[in-house]
């Protein structure tokens, strides 16, 4: 084979490999969970209802063992995302079904409910302002928006119980234990506000801080506040 032909083949292989690597890299970087639009068709003065759930393990590709939040879209379908469009200056009523276990908090400061309307949440119908994470089943997760001063600890389920391990979990099923937490907050002006879980809940990762704790769509997300 001529030298020039060999060089052409090598160049083609190198270019193809580089192209594939770029494609995979860009696909990885550009992959984002979908955004649920709660702002569409919103009327001024009307509150927005959001239902979420926390599940100890997602149960699906690509990270079946990762802990995650799920969001119920306005059409009732559960979507694996933590990105929402919310109308500005609007009351948001949040309901979270917490299916995961709990533990004492690394920092009990986040046992304090902050930033909600009235400064409280309801836990299975009872008004709560502080959760003692050393009592009972401890705290499983939090819903926190630091830039808005919002923090809501989510009471855990007993780790000895059989917990829901594949999302979405059915809130109407009595098969798996869960706690229902409700609270409301007001959205500020237009902007993007990161939210997260503050419990280092990434099982299997050093100090529980990697994996789903660092991945949008699992335990982190954005409130995308928009004008309607």
């Amino acid at each position, binding site marked *: 084979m001529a030298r020039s032909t060999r060089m052409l083949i090598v160049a083609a292989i190198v270019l193809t490999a580089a192209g594939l690597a770029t494609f995979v890299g860009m696909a990885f970087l550009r992959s984002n969970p979908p955004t649920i639009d709660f702002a569409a068709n919103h009327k001024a003065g009307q509150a927005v209802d959001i239902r979420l759930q926390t599940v100890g393990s997602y149960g699906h590709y690509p990270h079946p063992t990762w*802990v995650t939040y799920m969001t119920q879209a306005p059409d009732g379908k559960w979507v694996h995302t933590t990105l929402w469009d919310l109308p500005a200056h609007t009351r948001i009523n949040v309901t979270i079904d917490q299916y995961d*276990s*709990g*533990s*004492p*908090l*690394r*920092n*009990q*400061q986040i*046992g*304090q409910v*902050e930033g909600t309307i009235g400064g409280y949440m309801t836990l299975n119908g009872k008004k709560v*302002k*502080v959760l*003692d*994470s*050393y009592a009972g089943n401890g705290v*499983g997760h939090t819903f*926190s928006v*630091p*830039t808005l*001063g919002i923090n809501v600890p989510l009471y*855990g389920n007993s*780790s000895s119980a059989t917990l829901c391990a594949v999302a979405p979990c059915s809130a109407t099923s009595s098969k798996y234990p869960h706690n229902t937490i409700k609270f409301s907050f007001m959205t500020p002006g237009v902007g993007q506000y*990161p939210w*997260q879980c*503050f*419990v*280092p*809940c*990434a*099982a*299997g*990762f*050093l*100090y*529980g*801080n990697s994996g789903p*704790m*660092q*991945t*949008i769509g699992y335990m*982190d997300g954005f409130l995308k506040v928009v004008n309607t």
Partner: protein
Amino acid sequence: MAESDAGADQLAGGDGPPPGGGGAGEVSAVTGHSTGTPESHPMRAILPVWLLVSIAGDLLFWFLAGPHIPPGRMTSSAGGAVFDFNVLFVIAWPVVFGVWSYMAYALWHWRASRVPNDPVAGPYSRGHLGVQTAWIVVSTCIVIGVFIFGTVELVVPSGAGSAEGPDPIWTPSSHTVLPIQVIGQQWKWTYRYPTFGGFETTSLVIPDHTTIAFHVTSLDVIHDFWAYQLGVKADANPQQDNVAYTTTEEMGSFVVRCDELCGLWHGAMFNYGRVISKSAFAAWAKRTKAQLAANTKYLPPFQWTYVPDANGADGGYYPDNVDPYSKVEIYGAQKVKL
């Protein structure tokens, strides 16, 4: 430094006769321009301009720009940083302008159209012992002077707002120091006030005209507490009590940022603090203590550091296999220096 003096006596050290003979009143065969009158040393032409611009620039900067240099004068360490920056500018400006002006002179005076054959040896590349000596002496004096100045400015104001580790050697002279514990975690700052019952809050509020001891630590990875307008910056390391001092001198608000890349929401790890009057602070502390009392009773006993690897989601994921439900093991006791 090039020597442009074309006097024949200056050329004797070369490998051969000077270009074009080099005598007074002759025309150089190489340069093509008259060497009839020995050129004065370039520094003689530059010096008056340099002196005038240096003094004018320093005065203008000191009195016009200096008072407005960030981070302002909210604390002793912020004001100290401004003063240090201004002093360094005043020292640096004459040096910078001297180098620039000499470079401009060289570009103009020895440009190719004036020296077409670009001599690489002879009078144009010779050194000048006096200038070289002066350059070395002045540079040495400036560097040593800045070293002494910087050391004094670091030591005298008790670390100048920078962290000194758990055992500070430069401590403030004030007998009333307010300790505030700064706790970093992915991804927010909380503040604990040990002299007010140990409540922990997300708001950093401090009294005016008070010396503050920030005890900075972390519950997980390395963060960096950077209170910009306070002129305070300290790494937040897990299981380390990193102490930084400052004294508040003006009331106002300031921003706190994490200055150590710490994960996904590092860029969102910031909040705002306030310096308020002593009476307002006392009222705030009393009010906040009462508001947070329900949660404060569940906080662990105040310690300067907390062991971060023994607690978290459901336990058992951590390398030391410490029982996550043990309050004793969760928070490792460290020395108390209240």
